[in-house]
């Protein structure tokens, strides 16, 4: 049976049956007896002082139960949302990170910043109250443009953050890098914009907060990627309730991409308000609110330089990046443009010297935090654009230039913290070149030119650091938490198994892949395994799902717990078979005394573990349940080669991706079908960033791309049928050899697309998103224009 369902099997997702038949149970599906509804009143101004709020104006609306403002939260000592990762500036000073009040305390700092909440008997009453609530604002000048925000005459978002700067951070060896550039034969210089993205998970955020005055306990049902972290923050920083009095349940969650890692004002206010009105309080975000209030992604301005010797070997790399953090430094926002970004600037390359400077800058815009890839897409875009441009400037083939500079021996210590443990970058590149028929490209390009099309090819040989993360390492870099994962394996008397995991599934398919691991190891059918997650009363603790960590860290915890279960089961089997524990072998669900035909099956061992008849009590406890807290020894380093081939209509600027090859090395793969789905989705998101998605604020800080009328998500007809393949180098730093696959596509894709477009138009001046209009404009400036005409 293990062959059909075990590790490596292409098992259909168990959870899809309920998702595609409408049986999923999302937060918005939950309705509690006596429930009231919340509507948030949000700032229409990017920057303003909040004057008087006339609660009576909303209370007059029939059905309104209560109106709360920042003053009410302050009176209850509800804290502000913190940033959980401390970054130190290069001058030694700590980052400047004022907390984000859940409801405004005197000032609003972006359009959509919550000012008040109205609780109503019905959603309609709550919205009517929000509509009627009179709030006085004294508008202040807003700072919106990232490039101008640090100038001395820019308005201040936070009075305590001079020049709107949260921190000025550096990584790497400045002197060694300067030396490398001094002796360079050629230096490539580029300026890049990494466009801001709105996450747009299919399911908007939602919350139902419920207070039980009988037990003085709270329950929060919410759309979270990490319910235990939400509980920890609400307990330790926000003062909602101590952890043993607060249960957080994240039921089915419809996508997160990072945006549901964080603790937000709305969820916090719902659970707090439930005790004030002594009724459950429900809130479901609408799409327009989501555009304003979900943490955005990316938004960097970068100047990057690459130094080469006369043989085309890289001598050094340096970058200066301004990262827009929005109006507040969000929960993990400080780590994204620093330790998740600059640590990946070595790419797949052996670069002797790297120096990175990153300024985190406040503006009157929605806070920016991790979004699928979180820092690593930004790093890959910088490195892979630099590499491509450097190859073109020095007249080298971009594939050959990469190969010449690849890291080829492992472990490899980069100049920017990371130690790559395993990989074979040339193997991925070679396979990808073959799949795309690289040698036939020139012919395809001239054929396209005859048809008035500009054809281009672009590479992205990306690397990422996943399996986040060794607690010791992240602690030394400023993280406020450890990033291990927990698991508990409970065997029932009939031999069925419940796995309690601290990972959280919101589209990843854990109920399938985790069950595959258990089936494989215990030799039982997958249908006898239940994966339990997303409830702080069931799972003791967990760090959740993001950073492609659930396989490498979450499953490793399950693997260690399974080892312990098998060890205990062997003791039981030894007792039952009257043999020595050391002589028991366990294979395919059978315990056998080595070298004999005496054996007992899994189900009998499980049953006897609970009947416990005749157990020598001093040596053998009844029951069969083990847990583990697994802390990885290193990050994992998924890497691969994506090649994008596209055609541009020279008359309209419309880009059509005609072929996409991805050869990824994710280490060991549990379920190839699920991995392929992750790669497909990741590439789609990366192509969305490269071609379509753009978050635009006007100069007064109004979000003018705030709906799907103006913000373009990728659709199926924007994408080709992908050609995927894999190479495998086993990850040495976890027991399963897994590297992770959840973010790779989004990390690799933008550089591949822009490298292909710039190849097609013949110059480097193409920014994301490369819409048809932008590409058409680029063609007007292009030396390739004549070629097509």
């Amino acid at each position, binding site marked *: 049976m293990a062959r059909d369902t075990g590790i490596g099997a292409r098992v259909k997702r168990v959870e899809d049956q309920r998702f595609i038949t409408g049986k999923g149970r999302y937060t918005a599906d939950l309705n509690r007896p006596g429930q009231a509804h919340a509507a948030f009143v949000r700032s*229409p*101004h990017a920057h303003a002082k909040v004057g008087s709020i006339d609660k009576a104006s909303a209370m007059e609306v029939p059905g309104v139960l209560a109106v709360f403002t920042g003053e009410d939260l302050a009176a209850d000592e509800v804290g502000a949302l913190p940033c959980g990762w401390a970054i130190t500036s290069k001058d030694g000073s700590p980052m400047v990170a004022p907390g984000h009040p859940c409801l405004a305390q005197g000032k609003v700092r972006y359009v959509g910043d919550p000012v008040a909440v109205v609780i109503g008997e019905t959603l309609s009453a709550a*919205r009517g109250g929000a509509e009627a*609530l009179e*709030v006085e604002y004294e508008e202040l000048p807003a700072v919106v443009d990232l490039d101008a925000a640090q100038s001395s005459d820019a308005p201040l978002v936070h009075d305590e953050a001079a020049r709107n700067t949260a921190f000025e951070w550096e990584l790497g060896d400045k002197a060694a890098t300067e030396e490398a550039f001094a002796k360079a034969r050629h230096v490539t210089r580029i300026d890049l914009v990494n466009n801001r993205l709105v996450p747009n998970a299919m399911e908007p955020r939602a919350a139902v907060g419920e207070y039980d005055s009988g037990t003085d306990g709270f329950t929060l049902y919410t759309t979270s990627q990490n319910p235990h972290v939400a509980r920890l923050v609400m307990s330790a920083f926000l003062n909602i309730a101590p952890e043993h009095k607060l249960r957080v349940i994240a039921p089915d969650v419809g996508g997160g991409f990072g945006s549901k890692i964080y603790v937000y004002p709305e969820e916090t206010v719902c659970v707090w308000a439930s005790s004030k009105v002594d009724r459950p309080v429900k809130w479901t975000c609408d799409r*327009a609110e989501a555009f304003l209030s979900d943490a955005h992604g990316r938004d960097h301005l970068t100047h990057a330089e690459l130094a080469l010797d006369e043989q085309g070997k890289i001598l050094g790399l340096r970058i200066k990046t301004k990262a827009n953090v929005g109006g507040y430094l969000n929960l993990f926002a400080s780590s994204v443009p620093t330790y998740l970004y600059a640590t990946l600037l070595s790419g797949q390359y052996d670069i002797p010297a790297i120096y990175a400077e990153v300024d985190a800058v406040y503006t009157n815009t929605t806070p920016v935090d991790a979004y699928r890839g979180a820092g690593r897409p930004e790093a890959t875009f910088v490195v892979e654009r630099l590499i491509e441009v450097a190859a073109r400037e020095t007249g080298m083939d971009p594939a050959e230039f990469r190969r010449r500079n690849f890291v080829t021996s492992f472990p490899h210590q980069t100049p920017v913290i990371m130690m790559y443990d395993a990989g074979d970058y040339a193997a991925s590149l070679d396979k990808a070149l073959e799949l795309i028929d690289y040698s036939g490209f020139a012919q395809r390009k001239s054929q396209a030119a005859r048809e008035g099309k500009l054809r281009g090819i672009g590479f992205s040989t990306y690397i990422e650091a996943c399996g986040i993360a060794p607690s010791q390492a992240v602690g030394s870099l400023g993280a406020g938490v450890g990033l291990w994962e927990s698991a508990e394996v409970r065997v029932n008397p009939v031999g069925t198994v419940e796995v309690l995991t601290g990972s959280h599934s919101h589209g990843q398919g854990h109920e399938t892949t985790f069950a595959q691991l258990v089936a494989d190891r215990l030799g039982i059918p997958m249908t006898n395994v239940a994966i339990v997650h997303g409830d702080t009363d069931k799972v003791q603790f967990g760090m959740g799902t993001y950073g492609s960590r659930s396989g490498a860290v979450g499953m490793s915890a399950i693997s260690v717990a399974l080892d312990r279960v098998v060890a205990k089961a062997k003791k039981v089997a030894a007792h039952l078979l009257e043999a020595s524990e050391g002589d028991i072998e366990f294979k395919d669900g059978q315990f056998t005394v080595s070298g004999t035909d005496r054996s007992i099956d899994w189900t009998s061992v499980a049953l006897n573990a609970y009947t416990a008849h005749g157990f020598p009590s001093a040596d053998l406890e009844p029951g069969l349940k083990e847990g583990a807290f697994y802390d990885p020894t290193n990050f994992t380093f998924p890497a691969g080669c994506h090649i994008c081939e596209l055609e541009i209509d020279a008359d309209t600027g419309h880009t059509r991706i005609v072929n996409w090859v991805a050869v990824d090395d994710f280490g060991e793969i549990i379920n190839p079908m699920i991995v392929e789905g992750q790669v497909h989705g990741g590439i789609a998101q990366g192509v969305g960033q490269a071609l379509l998605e753009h978050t635009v604020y006007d100069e007064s800080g109004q979000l003018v791309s*705030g709906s799907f009328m*103006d913000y373009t998500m990728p659709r199926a007809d924007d994408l080709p049928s992908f050609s995927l393949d894999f190479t495998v180098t086993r990850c040495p730093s976890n027991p399963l050899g897994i590297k992770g696959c959840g973010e790779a596509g989004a990390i690799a894709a933008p550089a591949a697309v822009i490298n292909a477009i710039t190849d097609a138009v013949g110059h480097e001046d193409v920014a994301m998103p490369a819409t048809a209009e932008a590409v058409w404009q680029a063609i007007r400036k292009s030396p390739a224009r004549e070629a097509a005409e």
Partner: protein
Amino acid sequence: MAMKMTGEYTLPADRETVWQALNDPAILEASIPGCEEFEKVSDTEFNALARVKVGPVKARFRGNVTLSDIDAPNSYRISGEGQGGVAGFAKGGALVTLSDAEGGGTVLSYDVDAQVGGKIAQVGQRLINGAAKKTADQFFDNFRRQLDPDHAAPDAAAG
């Protein structure tokens, strides 16, 4: 977000009559599309409540209207600021200038410079100029009718 709009209408009345109408709260109230309240605070200040629809965003805007830079019977600036609840806000003004039309009547020209914010800017930005133009057309259509209730003549518009 900024919204700018200019236009011109020819009205079938002399300059003095048009000027009087532009300063008459009852005529303004009857002319403002969706106006539910228009209350005179002083000769140059009014409070207003109007229903507005921009694409999918519907709201009731409550605000004040002030007349300034008055040069009778030639021009004034009409400015205001309104709160539309969760729909956001609108503020700004228009310079309104009157001149004699060739062959009788009065040419009214306006130059609007306004800011809108919140949901109305977020969701309605592509629709806002069209909605504003439509509102202005409706206003002057109503205004013309007030000037000359017996001879409402749509073909007099030359916006």
